[in-house]
């Protein structure tokens, strides 16, 4: 774990900004905890991959994005959807497979989309979103609209062949795409050192001339700063950029993962020493940007949003049986 640096660049980060990050990260965490609870109650079925621990990655990068920029990710996607402004109720109702879900209950946890928020999924096949993301950037370049695409994938997907096919074409065609490698150190249950011959994934673009850097993914401010640099590179027409964001997943790979491949102490240590939400909370308090009461009010507000989302996801009816046969062809 590299995320031991707890210093902050608080001097040039406003109180409002910090509070915004705190709120956004807390929303993801509380949402995911609730999703885990609903899964335990049998209200969510199948696969459900929680984002707890990785919140700073997506919140930091969303802070670097502009309206119209696109994002695409894998199946661990709830955090990305909440961070780009998709309705928590619609996300949760998709998890419960209800009519009010963002895919009308037909996609589930791993397959959600929002044209309005420029969120292009939610993809269940490891690595598939990487060329798809470069394709979104291809369209942006073709249309000359100045947009960039954040293409998220994990340390596991980073070993997929299609990733390198994509790096080659993205560099060749100077596509405005940021490859965000969320390195949470475990590809399902396989530790990075057991699956990956060269540990510095951010250097994997060198062969294609793609610049890359590693980022402390437990520090939302570091992520945002790196994101801004990458965005500027892409928008200037210089082609793709790689960010390897070092992060950590507190929960199992999916809900049915007993997580025997790592010790409880390892998880506990990250939680206690590097938690991204605690870090911002500390900055807010020590910098006198907020009082305990201010933060309690935010906590309460988030809890309310998440409870409402959960209520909606339970109350929304199952999709009409007619839905079985719709949306197969446009």
């Amino acid at each position: 774990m590299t995320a031991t640096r707890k210093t902050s660049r608080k001097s040039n980060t406003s109180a409002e900004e910090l509070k915004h990050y705190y709120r956004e990260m807390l929303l993801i965490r509380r949402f995911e905890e609730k999703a885990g609870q609903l899964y335990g109650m049998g209200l969510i079925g199948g696969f459900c991959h929680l984002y707890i621990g990785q919140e700073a990655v997506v919140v930091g990068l969303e802070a670097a994005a502009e309206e119209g920029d696109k994002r695409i990710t894998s199946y661990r996607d709830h955090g990305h959807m909440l961070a780009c402004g998709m309705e928590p109720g619609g996300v949760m109702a998709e998890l419960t497979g209800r009519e009010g879900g963002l895919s009308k209950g037909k996609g589930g946890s791993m397959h959600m989309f929002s044209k309005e928020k420029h969120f292009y999924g939610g993809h269940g096949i490891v690595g598939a979103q990487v060329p798809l993301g470069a394709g979104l950037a291809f369209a942006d370049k073709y249309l000359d609209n100045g947009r960039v695409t954040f293409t998220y994938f994990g340390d596991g997907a980073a070993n997929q062949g299609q990733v390198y096919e994509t790096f080659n074409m993205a560099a060749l065609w100077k596509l405005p795409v940021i490859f965000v490698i969320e390195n949470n150190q475990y590809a399902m249950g396989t530790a990075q050192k057991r699956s990956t011959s060269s540990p510095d994934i951010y250097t994997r673009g060198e062969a294609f001339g793609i610049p890359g850097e590693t980022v402390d993914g437990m520090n939302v401010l570091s992520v945002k700063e790196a994101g801004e640099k990458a965005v500027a590179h892409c928008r200037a027409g210089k082609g793709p950029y790689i960010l390897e964001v070092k992060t950590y997943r507190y929960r199992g790979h999916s809900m049915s993962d007993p997580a025997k491949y790592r010790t409880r102490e390892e998880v506990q240590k990250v939680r206690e020493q590097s938690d991204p939400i605690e870090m911002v909370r500390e900055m807010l308090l020590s910098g006198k940007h907020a009082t305990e009461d201010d933060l309690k009010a935010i906590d309460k507000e988030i809890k309310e949003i998440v409870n409402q989302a959960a209520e909606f996801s339970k109350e929304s009816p199952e999709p009409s049986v007619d839905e079985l046969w719709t949306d197969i062809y446009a």
Partner: protein
Amino acid sequence: MATEILMPALSPTMEEGTLAKWLVKEGDTVSSGDILAEIETDKATMEFEAVDEGIVGKILIAEGTEGVKVNTPIALLVEEGESVDAALSAAPAADAGNEAAPAGGSEAPATPAPVAAPAAPKVDLSPDWPADAPMKSQTVREALRDAMAEEMRADEAVYLMGEEVAEYQGAYKISQGMLDEFGSKRVIDTPITEHGFAGIAVGSAFGGLKPIVEFMTFNFAMQAIDHIINSAAKTLYMSGGQMGCPIVFRGPNGAAARVAAQHSQDYAAWYMQIPGLKVAMPYSAADYKGLMKSAIRDPNPVIFLENEILYGRSFDVPQVDDLVVPFGKARIWREGTDVTIVSFGIGMQYALEAAERLAGDGISAEVIDLRTLRPMDLPTVINSVMKTNRLVTVEEGWPQGSVGSYIASEVMQQAFDYLDAPIITCTGKDVPMPYAANLEKLALITTDEVVAAVKQVTYR
């Protein structure tokens, strides 16, 4: 206010489990993320974390208890100063189960009742172009290029991508001249990486473009099939109708000549199986042109299966402003009364030759070109079988799970009473394609075999 902790479902299939071990005891304060207990599921032993904060007021299920049903209250969490007894009496224990998931699969899938003798199905017999349209002899190659070029002139979002499509002018010269007309922004050479460029093309379709992806042959599309099926065909459904994928995957399919096993496979039956895809496999140049124009305009992903041997063959192509042939409409090439022969793509060559020879023997064969396999114009086939009472299907692909076996099963279910003989499905042989010329000939379907099949079903 007390909170009940319920026995969690910790795998997609868990209905009950063993409460192996409590890691907290009554009176302990817990916060979100603390491990409360170890639970044995049907798959593994899992740690169970707290979601809410509070004090463990009472443990309701002792450790070591087996067969604890999901959603059974296993402990009670109370707040500071709250009495356990008061909480117990207030807790709506019986309600817990009401929050459980609704029983899945309550709606049994509607199995269609067997239909004994249907009324004649509705068939679209309208002509594809005016009968008096002037005709010009064109090759399939020219027809394909004209179709793509016309659609690219009409819509800036359409572009062509693939190996050797631009500077080389197409490995099979289908895109000849297109780089000159449309430039390198819209006619794009790719590296030889089907998986990657198919994914990029699908992503660009999500992003608002209308790609035409040329696979040098469909054999190589197997490297890209995940994007064709999982990314292109399923996204509209998975997104609840929000995000479609207007894309055409095209290229030669099936056996060429003497290129052996890895380069000689017919994928018609593979792609035909996938809901969300449309599949065309035309025979004549006019249909290549009209269907390609439809495919490019279609908002759905289309698999367009061409044939290398047909590329150089000439057919009459109607000279109309906008030749568009709809998907899902078969073409009757030859009317007949004694037997129906159904084929598509290069199979039509054997079907038509056989019909000609059979006419000499006094057997009148009706020959139907399906043109598209998904949607498939089964009404035209069934209508014909109701007249001829006999059916032979012809294709180059392998026998097991063939296009013909699907047609045979549908005809059997929908028009059983009209059949006077078992249906024969003529296919390629059940072997990888050999290289040796004599063996290759044996592996392919032949006109002789079609003639023999027709004689068998007509008892001649």
